[in-house]
């Protein structure tokens, strides 16, 4: 998978590149819109990460030009302005996603992965991580043959974690997917829920599946 990062702020471009490379993406990095248009014309990228505030030609105008050329490459817009209408404006201009700065690296990576995924979604109705299973039709969770009672919210949390099994899930991502919050409420809601879920799926079992990644979020995975 090859991703183009268009960001004029060098340090931001650098850690975004490193984070994506760590997830096995090939990353090209450019600092202005004109170069980005040239590069996109010559190379087929799987996704483009495009900062809105670029010197010269801004991100939105680059995006419009791409879409005018009938270039279908998925585009994730980044913006420090966080204007309320900017997301709508960006999506109308043909963006596939929008992420306001500052963002969680885990969230950026997850979104890029979602953009580059070509129908790879797990379609099975029973999710499985090690000996933990979750039936998405009956909402039944089991581990090692024992049925685990979940509240509706715990179910949504577990389903989300199991669908992203093996991958880091940031707090903001969890808030957005499980609570439908598009703001950081500044509470420890996610941590408290994860703790409760851990009680139910991990306390009496080995190995422990739900792990905390300090400062980054949580990951549900079979191997430690």
């Amino acid at each position: 998978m090859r991703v183009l990062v268009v960001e004029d702020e060098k340090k931001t471009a650098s850690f975004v590149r490193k984070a994506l490379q760590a997830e096995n993406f090939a990353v090209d990095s450019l600092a202005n819109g004109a170069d980005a248009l040239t590069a996109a014309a010559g190379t087929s990228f799987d996704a483009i990460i495009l900062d809105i505030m670029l010197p010269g030609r801004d991100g939105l105008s680059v995006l419009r030009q791409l879409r005018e050329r009938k270039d279908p490459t998925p585009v994730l817009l980044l913006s420090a302005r966080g204007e309320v209408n900017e997301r709508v404006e960006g999506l109308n201009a043909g963006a596939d996603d929008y992420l306001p700065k500052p963002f969680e690296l885990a969230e950026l990576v997850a979104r890029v992965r979602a953009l580059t995924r070509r129908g790879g979604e797990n379609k099975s109705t029973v999710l499985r991580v090690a000996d933990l299973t979750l039936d998405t039709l009956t909402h039944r969770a089991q581990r090692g043959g024992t049925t685990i009672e979940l509240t509706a919210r715990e179910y949504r949390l577990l389903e989300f974690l199991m669908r992203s099994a093996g991958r880091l899930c940031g707090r903001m991502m969890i808030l957005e997917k499980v609570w439908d919050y598009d703001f950081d409420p500044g509470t420890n809601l996610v941590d408290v829920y994860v703790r409760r879920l851990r009680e139910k799926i991990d306390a009496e079992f080995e190995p422990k599946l739900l792990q905390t990644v300090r400062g980054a979020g949580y990951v549900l995975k079979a191997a430690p």
Partner: protein
Amino acid sequence: MTLRKRLTLWYAGILIASLLVIGVGTYREIDEQLRHAHRRAPEERAISETGEMVFQVGLPAILLGLLGGGWLTRKALEPVKELTDAIRKTHEHNLRDPLPRTHNGDELDRLANVFNDTLARLDDSFNRIREFTLHASHELKTPLTILRGETEMALRDESLSPAERERAGSQLDELHRLTRIVDGLTLLARADAGQIPLKLEPVRLDEQVRDNFADAQILAEPHGIRVELENCEEITVRGDRHRLRQLLLNLADNAVKYNQPEGRVTTDLRRVDGMAEFTMVNTGAGIPLEILPRVFDRFFRGDPAHENKIEGCGLGLSIAQWIISAHGGTIQIQSTPSKTTTVIVRLPLDPAANQPA
């Protein structure tokens, strides 16, 4: 023409009218005297005629002067009253609406003009502060993005020692807090500038309150705080779903944070006087009466002792207040120190929804 000139002319008019009354009265008296001069003794005539003159000529003239004076005063003060009313209606958010002017160049018109200039300058200062806040929060976002990204990358380094990991993790926690502060400031600065449109739709407030109740229970559990939901009447308001959820979570979070261990949080939603009334009572230390009016101020912290114990962005209640007033509602906080604190939120009902009265 100046007000002084105008009033002087009017006053002269009243004096002339009084003089006319005296003149006409005196003329008629004297005329009568000359016709009937022979009927009475001269000394008796002088006394009675003087009396008649005073009553029939002087009194009407004085009365005219008094009425005229009263009318004149009212007329002189009327523009002052209008100006006072207009000034009284001036507040932070309508500084751009100037006072009405007569443009006749008198003292009061000049006063209105000076006042309008002052308002414009005040409005300008307010705008500058808003713009400053907005720009400051934007400028902070780029370094924050870098700091957060680099710290997150550092934490991914497998070779970090536990102590280094702890330090970087703690830094990241503070960066998250800083992000919330900057986001809060951006939100309020935009709200001040009227740049945040609400996505209004019918929202079942009772469902939001129930959802929030579940979240509040989870937040309260680690502190042994009991959360109760008393009434939860079916109520539809017209509002922005996300903002209302943000509001409720914000209040629940405060009710838990400022509570005491093993305390209680009681929530209630009902219809009162054609409004949705949501109350949340907590059994925390309460808020001293003298600082109660200031709790909605940005970054205001009532109890310095709390400053280190309770972390927050210091903007929660300001944001809550904005959300409520943007929905045409009100928020009120009552507190009995060391007993309970009650937050009362009133929101208008959705007029289109068919709701039981």
